């Protein structure tokens, strides 16, 4: 199958990364979000990502600003995905948002088109149930920064077909990405485990056991992780982390997923991490 145009729904943090990766690899995108302001900000972020590629990667393609611009159609109209050969959804981790969106996508997209649900925790089987094409819905847990990550956690929903998986793997071959295919379960493998780390790190900070810097240093300098759990939470966005913890808590009814009050307080205070310049750490020059 030839991919001419990819629909990207949601132009937030992760959506920007997805668009960056697609345009870098020569694919045209139709980027949908709810306001022109969000789309303009996303376009600026994509252009900055494209500009910084030489600094961050020796292997990613280099493209010009004009090439990137030509490969992005920005729109607030969901109907504009009707020309797309594959759709990647990255909207807020909230079932009340995702359910009506998938119902609408199902009406608009061509019948043979597959949907990649870039969700953090919500079940792929549940998402697929909002459409009449449940065999064509597959989970793609892309992680930040999307264009720098060579491997993706891919989730097969209850009804996901082999053909859908093959289509996604074809798209990944264009993006030079590998897939680790796992079964559907809330939080899949990655977030079911990683969110426990991030949440417990927030509890450790709340209990004054160590500073945020020290907590991250233990993970980086003792465990050899590239980032500590609090830096990772800041990169994901603390609002997204809280929503994911809430989904995990709701799904398993296990108290180990109860959200740390400090984490929720930072979200209420508007300190959402890198995207707002402040979270567990400060990022004044982002």
């Amino acid at each position: 199958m030839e991919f001419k145009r990819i629909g990207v729904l949601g132009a937030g943090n992760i959506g920007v990364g997805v668009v960056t990766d697609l345009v870098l690899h020569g694919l045209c995108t139709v980027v949908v979000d709810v306001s022109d302001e969000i789309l303009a900000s996303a376009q600026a972020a994509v252009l900055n990502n494209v500009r910084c590629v030489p600094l961050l990667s020796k292997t990613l393609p280099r493209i010009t600003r004009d090439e990137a611009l030509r490969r992005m159609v920005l729109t607030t109209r969901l109907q504009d995905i009707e020309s797309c050969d594959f759709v990647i959804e990255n909207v807020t981790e909230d079932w009340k948002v995702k359910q009506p969106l998938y119902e609408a996508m199902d009406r608009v997209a061509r019948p043979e088109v597959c949907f990649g649900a870039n969700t953090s925790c919500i079940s792929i089987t549940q998402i697929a149930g909002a459409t009449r094409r449940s065999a064509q819905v597959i989970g793609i847990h892309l992680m930040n920064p999307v264009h720098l990550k060579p491997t993706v956690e891919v989730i097969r929903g209850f009804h996901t077909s082999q053909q859908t998986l093959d289509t996604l793997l074809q798209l990944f071959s264009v993006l030079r990405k590998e897939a680790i295919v796992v079964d559907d379960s809330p939080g899949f493998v990655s977030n079911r485990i990683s969110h426990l780390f991030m949440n417990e790190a927030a509890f450790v900070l709340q209990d004054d056991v160590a500073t945020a810097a020290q907590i991250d240093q233990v993970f980086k300098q003792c465990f050899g992780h590239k980032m500590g759990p609090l830096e990772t939470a800041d990169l994901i966005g603390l609002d997204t982390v809280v929503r994911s913890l809430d989904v995990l808590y709701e799904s398993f009814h296990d108290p180990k997923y109860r959200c740390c009050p400090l984490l929720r307080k930072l979200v209420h205070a508007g300190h959402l991490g890198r995207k707002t310049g402040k979270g567990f750490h400060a990022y004044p020059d982002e």
Partner: protein
Amino acid sequence: MHTPTSESTVAHPENAAQVKETIRRFILSSIRMARLDDDANLFESGVANSLFAVQLMTFVEKTFAIDVDMDDLDIENFKSVNATTAFVLRKKGHLGD
């Protein structure tokens, strides 16, 4: 939580020593460490991840009012306090002082 040196406190330093001190302070506050060898490779040592290179590049661009061109976007220019200082001085036309 620590706040790295902001652009407004820097006031476009002119000489090499000031440039180095401004860069050193930004790096130390960003990586949340009290000290670091000026030649230590930030990325190979693991004290910073590659995304910090973008933060550092943005910081020097704004603080020292320089244009970072496509050809300048090389991690070698931002790998340490000394490398970043040398890069800024080169862009500002300093021949070393």
